[in-house]
């Protein structure tokens, strides 16, 4: 299988074997998605670019941590990018997050099988979030997609920090029941 046709899981495995061509193909196939992740969470182009670089260096160095079949390879890559962006976000001083970022929307880059798996998870989480009150569902989505902390969520919904914590935890427990049903 040539790098051009290898699927993402195989490309990650080839990175473990220090295959630079596979790394480049992996970057070409996935970097636009991961840039979307670092940009959404960091809301700053320069920081998002720097984070993206660190994410791919990490992927090259830690590709051996990926366990094929664990979950979808693109989800794993998104998780690496999201966790890294969160580390950067939590390390920096709190600041206004209202900077609008112009986004160039491109193709999703998923093959049909990945799209099907992704759409299964997507409809499940969408349905279960739909069972929560709108604000609570929004808070969970904000935590995952924008990396909001409890402090930011409390400010956003104008409730005391401990209240925010309590109601988000209750929402997560309800969500969990639906997600495993």
């Amino acid at each position, binding site marked *: 299988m040539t790098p051009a046709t290898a699927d993402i899981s195989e490309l990650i495995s080839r990175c473990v074997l220090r295959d630079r061509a596979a790394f480049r193909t992996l970057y070409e196939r996935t970097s636009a998605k991961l*840039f979307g992740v670092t940009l959404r969470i960091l809301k700053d182009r320069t920081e998002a670019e720097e984070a993206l670089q660190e994410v791919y260096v990490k992927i090259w160095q830690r590709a051996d941590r990926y366990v094929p079949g664990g979950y979808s390879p693109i989800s794993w890559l998104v998780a690496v990018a999201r966790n890294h962006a969160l580390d950067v976000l939590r390390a920096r001083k709190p600041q206004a997050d209202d900077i609008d970022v112009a986004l160039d929307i491109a193709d999703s880059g998923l093959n049909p099988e990945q799209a099907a798996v992704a759409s299964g998870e997507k409809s499940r989480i969408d349905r279960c979030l739909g069972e929560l009150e709108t604000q609570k569902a929004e808070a969970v989505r904000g935590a995952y997609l924008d990396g909001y902390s409890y402090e930011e969520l409390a400010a956003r919904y104008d409730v005391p920090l401990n209240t925010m914590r309590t109601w*988000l935890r209750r929402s*997560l*427990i309800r969500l969990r029941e639906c997600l495993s049903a």
Partner: protein
Amino acid sequence: MDGDRALAAEYVLGLLSPADRAATGRRLDSEPALAAEARLWQSRFSGLDAEFDVVAPPSRLLAAIEARAFGDAPKATGLANWWNNLALWRALTAGAAAVAVIALGFGLTRPAPLDPSAVAVQLVAALEQEGSATKFLALYDGATGSVRLTAVSGEAVADRDLELWYIDDTDAPVSMGVIPVSGRTEVPLPREAQIKFEDGTVLAITLEPKGGSPTGAPTGMIVAAGQAVAI
């Protein structure tokens, strides 16, 4: 039960304080049920991934990433005495950090979490060099105190042998002997007291006259090198 479920979700979402995050991370290493719960949340939340937009990064990033990921491997020049220069070996050691190292045990077949003591004595280095077809994988096994070498690619060169060198960052390379160009071979660590295979250890392979370097120091060009990192 519910408490741990919510905790795993908070961990995955990144909502915990740094202290709680670290404490939960340690629990994940030792509590398979909690780790499974975190994986379940990660998988379920990934259903939201489609909402991350797809945004093409600037094209200059790839070159910057490759420079950082791959490092600047020193180019072989083939000059003899070049290899006797200590400063050069030190530079190689630093540069080799970016060369291929595989932490065996977190590999493709075994699921997390792992017993750290079971893998602590195993280190793997991939030995390769830009522009060279010769590639080896080296596995150090603390139980036997020897390095198992597997030739991945490369061909014999007429009237030349490959010689394996152990390098740490302060001393001259120590020969581990001539090695076959193909197949697998087991090489004991040199019996000098200060020699240990550990984090930062570099193995290098040079092309030497038949029978190995006549001087006890590398004289030929380096065809493969790699550094081990502690797991």
